[in-house]
């Protein structure tokens, strides 16, 4: 739903790095996005194509690596991965406790870009 401002931020960041590195064309941008985010890959790319027209990022492909949701049990400190679609009946696989801290799954990160 909020892909447009997010995409604008991605473009701003990569253009700043492009200019600092004398880049003439960006080919690929590698992102890391947590599974808890509602961003839709297809929409980000579509907005990016629109926003990046006439910049060195025009035509760049966004590769999004989804980072899984990992919880850590509050009782026994066991960490384990969960399916975001099946958050209903999660219990710690090690001790059966039901209270957890979120370790990963909220990432919103630009790793790097391939450019010339």
């Amino acid at each position, binding site marked *: 739903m909020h892909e447009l401002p997010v995409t604008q931020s991605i473009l701003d*960041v990569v253009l700043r790095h492009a200019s600092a590195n004398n880049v003439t064309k960006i080919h690929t941008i590698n992102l890391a996005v947590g599974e808890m*985010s509602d961003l839709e890959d297809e929409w980000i790319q579509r907005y990016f194509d629109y926003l990046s027209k006439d910049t060195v990022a025009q035509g760049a492909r966004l590769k999004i690596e989804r980072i899984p949701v990992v919880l850590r049990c509050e009782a026994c400190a066991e960490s384990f991965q969960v399916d975001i679609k099946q*958050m209903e009946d999660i219990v710690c696989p090690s001790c059966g406790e*039901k*209270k957890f801290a979120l370790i990963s799954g909220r990432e*919103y990160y630009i790793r790097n870009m391939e450019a010339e």
Partner: protein
Amino acid sequence: MEEIKLIEIKEEILSDNKNLADELRIRLRQEKTFLLNLMSSPGSGKTSLILRTIAALRVRFRIGVLEADIDSIVDSEKVASTGIQAVQLRTGGFCHLDAPMVTRGLEAFDLTMLDLVIIENVGNLVCPAEFDTGAVRNAMILSVPEGDDKPLKYPLMFSICDVLIVNKIDYLGMSDFNMQALKERVTRLNPDITIIEVSCRTGAGIETWAKWLADEVAGFLRG
């Protein structure tokens, strides 16, 4: 053709917003103004809760309200009718508030004259969860008619809030809403969250909510 090189970036996508939110929090600390970000779906009772909160705490704190609405001023008129300063921020179709918008909205207030500013965020359980507004505390409302399954559908929202207000508990008898199941689902995502049951219509639980907020604001003002 030039060689393709890999340029490391390693930056948060929303780092600009995060930085502005941190700056705003520092300023609010200096001004001694507590900023509460209130989020929920449309129709769950944000404006009603704000009106109840004003009634409960206006003798103790100087309150302002920052209303975000896609394109209307209905809510801010309701708040302004209580004599409390309300600023309307039309988001022009935006689905959430971010730190720059809140910073701009706060310019309409004299913050040195206010102890507490409540942001009524855009009615939406998705987008506002992703954008740090610069608030000191995040609160959300879930109303009974929305159902106890919402933490399963909008986990991020429930995981970033400090307090969950369950509103419209006067509807509990008419629905199959399972409060125990809701609480288990929410604490699974966020073990530290405070859950308060209220009815803005009957006034039930409002005292508990007002006390939670008053303790937070008083603690903040003491520094």
